[in-house]
């Protein structure tokens, strides 16, 4: 799934960054710009869309909506919290995971590589259940854990959801960052050394920002995927927006309406994510060769 950022080994000649927003190629993760909205095929599509919205509003039942609006909003809140916390935490894990694979000694890079391979090679749902039903049922057997200050949290479901989603994000992003670190032209790192930077400074001032910048388009796509992985936590009793909608369907016996709303909610969240990433990508323009 993760498109590895395998850029060709940077040549010694003028290195123009090839990282023109890769998004534009992938439909759902890109947004058309204002002017492009006026192209004929877009206008036609918008008309179709408006038709669908009209039919949905006219022929389907929406009277249940006010009753559940509060629950849905709080569900969206939980989903967003899951997404934000796990992608931020996951990213902080991903940076060292990627870095040690590029420069670390074997006893760091090998475990990192193993971690990424295993997590990426198994279904997220499996990992989630292993953590929740496996670890979660082991913990109560240890009195030390039951008496620790962590116990009130470990009894709940969400920490396991956060843990599983974080580890998964870290593994995929670890791969992305590995590629991004490798792809930073050697000459730029060499210039940093030649100007007397310590390794620490070189990393924080040059290598990391440069790698993150390179990785942004990929990170964008990965974060959208992460958003769409969050409903899995509903399977371990976390009440995210997906869980709320499932509940609505059970109670109201409605099939389509809640699902349509759910789709709309995820679409809007995705659009917001893409817009946010695009803002950051634009802050440092790269030349489209």
């Amino acid at each position: 799934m993760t498109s590895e950022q395998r850029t060709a080994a940077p040549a010694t000649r003028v290195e123009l960054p090839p990282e023109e927003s890769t998004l534009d190629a992938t439909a759902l993760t890109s947004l058309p710009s204002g002017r492009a909205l006026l192209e004929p095929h877009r206008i036609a599509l918008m008309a179709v869309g408006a038709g669908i919205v009209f039919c949905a509003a006219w022929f389907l039942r929406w009277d249940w909506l006010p009753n559940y609006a509060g629950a849905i909003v709080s569900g969206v809140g939980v989903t967003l919290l899951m997404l934000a916390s796990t992608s931020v935490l996951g990213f902080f894990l991903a940076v060292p995971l990627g870095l040690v694979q590029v420069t670390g000694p074997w006893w760091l890079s090998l475990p990192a590589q193993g971690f990424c391979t295993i997590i990426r090679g198994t279904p997220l749902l499996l990992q989630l259940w292993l953590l929740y039903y496996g670890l979660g049922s082991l913990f109560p057997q240890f009195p030390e854990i039951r008496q620790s200050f962590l116990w009130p949290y470990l009894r709940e479901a969400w920490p396991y959801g956060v843990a599983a989603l974080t580890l998964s994000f870290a593994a995929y992003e670890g791969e992305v960052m590995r590629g991004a670190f490798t792809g930073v032209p050697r000459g730029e790192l060499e210039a940093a050394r030649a100007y007397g930077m310590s390794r620490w400074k070189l990393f924080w001032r040059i290598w990391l920002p440069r790698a993150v910048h390179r990785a942004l388009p990929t990170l964008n796509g990965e974060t959208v995927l992460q958003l769409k992985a969050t409903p899995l936590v509903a399977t371990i009793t976390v009440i995210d927006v997906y869980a709320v909608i499932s509940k609505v369907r059970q109670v109201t016996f409605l099939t389509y309406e809640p699902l349509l709303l759910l789709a709309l909610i995820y679409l809007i969240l995705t659009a917001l994510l893409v817009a946010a990433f695009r803002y950051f990508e634009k802050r440092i323009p790269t030349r489209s060769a």
Partner: protein
Amino acid sequence: MTERAEAIAVRDLCKRFGALEVLKGISLTAREGEVIAIIGGSGSGKSTFLRCINMLEVPSSGSVAIRGEEIALRSDRRGGLVPSDRRQVQRLRARLGMVFQSFNLWQHMTIIQNVIEAPMHVLGVPRAEAIERGEALLRRVGLFDKRDVYPAFLSGGQQQRAAIARALAIQPHAMLFDEPTSALDPELVGEVLGVIGDLAKEQRTMILVTHEMKFARDVASHIVFLAHGVIEEQGPPEQIFGDPKSELLKKFISSSH
């Protein structure tokens, strides 16, 4: 006339890459204000020599001293040398302005950010002062209007001039140029050589690796011809180009026209 102080002194420098012996005992002194041009065929070890001066490449044996301060080296487990004091190397590097063939500007920073980076974050110059000096340098290399542009949007010649401003910004004791015009389109070479020529005129200490023979002849006070890892011949430009002694040098000069 009193001898000027030694800015860079290299003694018996050898460098091996595995079995390949690239530099076989090179001694060279650059005094304050001297412009030394290093010429020689491809693969003769010019870049390697330059990179040994600021320890981007660690010599296999020999010594390098900057302004009389010798860079401390010790042998490592595998029998090679490593700097014994990383801090010393960083401190000395921070006063050697290196200009690369491929510019190596930091692409995630604007031109002015590139220029103030080392002064601020290595030398600890306050931001306002770094910017003021940086802007003066950009004006001097004719890039003031590009101060907030990212390097990818500049031509090669502009990038190299920005890289020279970056090197000047650390107020270097000496400048090291490694073929600064080799990656440029022919029509852009002139603007960069112009800037370097001006620097030579103000008596900055410079070591310059170049394939531009005419330029070397015009600006250098001393020419070093490197061949097969040794200094085959050296002397003032008139002698090197007007009356070369060694066969290799004669061949090299006639082939580079």
